[in-house]
């Protein structure tokens, strides 16, 4: 690693005096930098590793020696307990269904709106855009009471739609789409229009197929956001069979109280789906966040 650590800068023989000392300073700096980075990244992995290590220890052992990292008798007993006590298959399914539904609706409604704002021309377009821009400053959580009352009125408590619908108006998604659509060459749209394609058809057959990167970026950040949302499903869902994974897992905590092996097993069970998604799409996710116009 030290080989790559030397930046190309130092390889050019500097015309200034004392190239030797400069080279040493550069190397020393890189050594220290690497040390700091490795120390912090290992520190950052400790909670995850510890949760995993504790979850596979027998409960009795965790009680007698809670801070040990190792066990002579690894077991999945704690995981079994969680499956027995909770409604884990339901929670996974509920989280999956609500996240997918929200993501699909957000991508459809958001990209349509962004396309209208970016490509079509109509009188109220600028006003509509400014109103949407203002929406970025409305913190959704602050509005939980009226949102809850509206859903109660509509009889949507303890339903998927109750979890899904209020999360669909995602202003950031519209902006990300609009920014991408703004970059599509005008000629491409005009050509389609000249061939007699309607706006809707232009959107569906020309624009969406070339928008894969932005669609996947929005899909991932909406999906993760909805999957991880806690406060909203906590309010809307009280029926254990309708709970999402994060809400369900915390309800198990109340059942077990102290036994930490079970606690850590539920943490691991909650962490696995998203860590898997992250491991698979690391590049996409990171580029998505970095490139979504948040800059």
């Amino acid at each position, binding site marked *: 690693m030290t080989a790559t650590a030397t930046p190309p800068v130092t390889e050019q023989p500097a015309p200034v005096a004392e190239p030797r000392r400069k080279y040493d300073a550069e190397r020393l700096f890189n050594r220290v930098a690497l040390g700091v980075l490795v120390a912090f990244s290992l520190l*950052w992995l400790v909670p995850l590793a510890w949760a995993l290590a504790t979850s596979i220890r027998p409960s009795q052992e965790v009680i007698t020696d809670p801070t040990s990292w190792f066990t002579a008798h690894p077991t999945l007993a704690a995981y079994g307990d969680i499956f027995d006590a909770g409604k884990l298959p339901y929670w996974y399914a509920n989280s999956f269904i609500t996240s997918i539904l929200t993501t699909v609706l957000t991508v459809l409604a958001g990209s349509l709106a962004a396309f209208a704002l970016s490509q079509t021309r109509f009188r109220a377009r600028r006003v509509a855009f400014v109103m949407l821009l203002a929406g970025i400053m409305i913190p959704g959580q602050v509005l*939980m*009471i*009226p949102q809850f009352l509206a859903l109660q009125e509509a009889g949507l408590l303890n339903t998927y739609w109750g979890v899904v619908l209020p999360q669909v*108006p995602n202003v950031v998604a519209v902006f990300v789409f609009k920014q991408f659509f703004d970059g599509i060459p005008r000629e491409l749209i005009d050509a389609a229009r000249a061939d007699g394609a309607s706006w809707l058809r232009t959107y569906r057959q020309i624009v969406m197929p070339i928008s894969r990167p932005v669609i996947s970026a929005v899909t991932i950040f909406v999906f993760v956001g909805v999957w991880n949302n*806690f406060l909203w499903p906590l309010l809307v869902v009280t029926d254990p069979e309708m709970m999402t994974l994060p809400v369900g897992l915390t309800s198990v905590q109340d059942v077990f109280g102290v036994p*930490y092996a079970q606690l850590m097993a539920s*943490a691991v069970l909650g962490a696995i789906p998203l*860590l898997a998604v992250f491991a698979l799409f690391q590049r996409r996710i990171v580029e998505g966040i*970095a490139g979504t116009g948040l800059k």
Partner: protein
Amino acid sequence: MATTTAPTKARGRGDRWAGPGMLLPFSLFYLVFLVGPLIYTVVAGFFDTSLLKSGLGDFAGFSNYSTVLGDSEFWRTLKNTLWFTVLTTVPLVLLSLVLAILADRFVRGRWFFRFAFFAPFVLPSAVVALMFTFIYADQVGLAQQAATWVGVDTPPSWLGDPDWAMISIAAATVWWTLGFNFVLYLAGLQDIPRSVHEAAAIDGAGPWQRIRHVVVPMLGRTTTLVTVLQVVASLKVFDQIYMLTNGGPDGSTRPSLQLIYDTGFVEGRVGYASTVSLLLFVVILLVSLVWFALVRRAEKER
């Protein structure tokens, strides 16, 4: 030119409605779940609305406002929220900046650092809370154990001591969300041309001087963005506090959003909770507006 105007003219009436029509589905969601609730919050703040009775209840004028502003618990939760914001924003901006600058020097190991710092960010708050419930537990937790290793004989009860509870929650939050800022900074660093580094190096600047006088100033825009996003996110803190301490011990960690949750949903005082919501909204709005002003100014200077 001809190609752009001809088809639009030929298309006629149905086409004029295409734009608004495509905007409609999103607008409906937007009106029903953001604009409507915002108006309701403003209105309910002037009524003595209750969860137990239907309708808005009796008109209350500004009495909700005088009650809230005269309520020491409102000020305490606001103070807790601001304290949490300071405790998280400072390390989350500075530490992510430092780590990103250092990681930017290494091409080959970067994926590992990115994984280590970013992986916690994808976890649900519930999972983070479960982990730190154990880490911060009295006697059996890793945090107290670690404190004794470094020579503290009687480590504090991390979540049970009012002086430490908020600090502990903030530390867990730094662990959880650092990766997001880290990634934004890495992206900002990508935009600095290699030639800038080289020019500075040829001028005889060492690594430390280059970072201080070249890299950090060039990341100014990213830093503004990261700071504002962080402040706004921290002002909305709820999940991890609710699960780790439920606002305790003795309300020492209770944030504003939990005051809204408790008064609104547990006590059913919707009028009061709406007033608190609106005041919190104004605070967040002010922060966002200051950001817009800063960005505007920075862009004009360019």
